[in-house]
């Protein structure tokens, strides 16, 4: 990754009739960076990607690729490579012809075309498949051809729209490795769309989280996972529990004291705090052994599910609704449905968040959180 900005999205909005698919999205992607657009279905990821590549035109805003405004350019002139969820291989062409398609249009000499196709097939590990037709390949192989086709003419940017969405789990993991290796080897700039946070974690340099057509935040996977800036990021990205707490005082820019039930504790703050506050607690932070100054979560076991090494324990917690914990299987073996239980959370693993983007509290992800009117009054 370099500091040079490859893709510059400035205040881009898109309306389809009455629905605002995108609202004032601003985002920079660096050359060589792997950036993932992550968000629930319908959040506008595909729309943004299609505007970058030229299949939709923005209602407002500008998109710069390599420093030039591309709004007047046809997709052909944008120097982008696109990989689609449903592969979109040309069914009437062989694998080699598919990969060479962009090269032919660029009038590469035949020998160079052939050489480049060979290189690309090496890259995606499909040596010897030149003469096959797409219908003779498995889904994973087709997607690798699609990848090779998009890479062959060395576009300035590679765009992928849920490329692994049509593949089964094992193939997805294998393809993630292929994509990671290619990104590393070619130093390509990639904008990748997915709704799967595991995939985003595994692949990305940075992740842009989208919700309802708006960009929520852009950060590295570590930051987003360990220091989520909003309740949406915490619950959507790390599947964190959100506990209703009261802000007691701000201890500084990145920490605060809060009260949960009778207990008071210090926690981290990563984003902006405004309105009702919640404590984000990751599922693996809930333990059975207490630690110094820990947060105590009391509830009754509603359900337990064995996930192999870990057991998912779902608690009914008064005030907080359902709380999900992932506990080592041996440590959770004694938990039975209906049994009251206490779980302990180390304070340094909690993050104070608010629902930054949603207009009214109690919408979307935090339907279970009760109103905390007094939290509004407390300032740092």
């Amino acid at each position, binding site marked *: 990754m370099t500091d040079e900005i490859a893709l510059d999205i400035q205040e881009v909005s898109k309306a389809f009739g009455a629905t605002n698919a995108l609202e004032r999205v601003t985002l920079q992607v660096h050359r060589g960076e792997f950036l993932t657009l992550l968000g629930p279905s319908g959040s506008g990821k595909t729309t943004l990607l299609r505007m970058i590549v030229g299949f939709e035109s923005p209602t407002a805003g500008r998109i710069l690729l390599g420093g030039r405004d591309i709004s007047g350019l046809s997709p052909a002139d944008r120097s982008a490579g696109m990989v*689609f969820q449903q592969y979109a291989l040309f069914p*009437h062409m062989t694998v080699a012809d598919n990969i060479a398609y962009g090269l032919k249009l660029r009038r590469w000499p035949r020998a160079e075309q052939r050489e480049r196709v060979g290189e690309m097939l090496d890259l995606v590990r499909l040596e010897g498949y030149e003469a096959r037709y797409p219908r003779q390949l498995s889904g994973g192989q087709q997607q690798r051809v699609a990848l090779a086709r998009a890479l062959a003419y060395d576009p300035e940017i590679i765009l992928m729209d849920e490329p692994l969405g049509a593949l089964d789990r094992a193939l997805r993991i294998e393809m993630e490795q292929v994509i990671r290796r290619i990104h590393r080897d070619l130093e390509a700039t990639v904008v990748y769309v997915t709704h799967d946070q595991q995939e985003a974690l595994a692949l990305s340099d940075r992740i842009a989280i989208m919700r309802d057509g708006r960009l929520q935040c852009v950060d590295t996977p570590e930051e987003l996972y360990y220091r989520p800036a909003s309740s949406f990021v915490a619950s959507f990205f790390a599947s964190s529990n959100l506990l209703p707490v009261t802000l007691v005082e701000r201890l500084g820019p990145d920490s605060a004291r809060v009260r949960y039930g009778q207990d008071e504790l210090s926690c981290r703050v990563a984003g902006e705090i405004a309105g009702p506050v919640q404590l984000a607690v990751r599922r693996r932070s809930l333990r059975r052994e207490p630690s110094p100054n820990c947060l105590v979560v009391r509830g009754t076991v509603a359900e337990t599910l064995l996930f192999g090494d870990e057991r998912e324990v779902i608690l009914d917690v008064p005030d907080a609704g359902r709380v999900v914990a992932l506990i080592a299987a041996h440590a959770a073996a004694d938990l039975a449905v209906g049994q009251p239980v206490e779980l302990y959370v180390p304070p340094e693993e909690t993050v104070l968040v608010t629902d930054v983007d949603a207009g009214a509290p109690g919408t979307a992800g935090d339907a279970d959180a009760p109103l905390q009117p007094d939290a509004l009054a407390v300032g740092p």
Partner: protein
Amino acid sequence: MAPLHDRNAVTADRNRRERMRHLSDRATRLGGGTVVTIAALLLLIPAALVVALSFSNDKYFNFPPRSWGTRQYHTLFTSPQWGDAIWLSVKIAVPAVVLSTLIAVPAVFAINRSRLPLRHALQAAGVTSLIVPLSAYAVAMYGVFVQLHLLATYLGLVIANTVLAFPMILVVTTAAMSRIPVELELAAMTAGASRLRAWAGITLRLLIPAILAGAVLAFITSFDEAVFINFLGGPGQVTLPKAVFDSVRFGVDPVITAIATLLMLFTSVLMLIALRLRRTGQ
């Protein structure tokens, strides 16, 4: 828990209803099967009759024939009048199909790849000529052909047949286009193709089997056209359907059975080709 005798009564009642239902189901299946069998036979018999009678060796029409042979086919191939009629039919159908293709295919692209208002209404309007009462439509065309001096002309017949034939290509090509993912075009354009090139090299290329299938159906439509020709053709323009029509109208010439059989063979082969083409296009 219900007393024992009650339970027995309930069980007996249920068993009886089960039996009734089984009987009713069997009657339904049997009844349906019988009606369908009779319907299928009634559809097949006239066709089979024509084929069978084409191998009658009688000079005049007899049923059942007194002798069997290939006399009708001999008569057919040695009389020039039928050859002329077939030739005129082909001479009308071929340009009508070409015109139909040139009209329908660009229209399908415009309808599916533009935001033009009313484009879907236009597509629906494209099949008008298939659903208006044909004899009334023929009178309407008669009025226009008189005005444009197209009555009893070759050009007029080509136009009239085009009007009836192009919806075939429109319909078949539209259906095929809806099955080609637009992403293919988009992929081509990102790879560097102009829109025209993406259309021609990808979508149009993939539509070819469907267009050919539509063209075959359009050809059959035109080759078989028997209504407009009566109103618009005048006495001079005798296509094959017109010749058969006149012959049947003024008596049952047994040669017709031979023509009919060959026509059936010809049409069925063309239709199977069209079907195969539509399949490969998918």
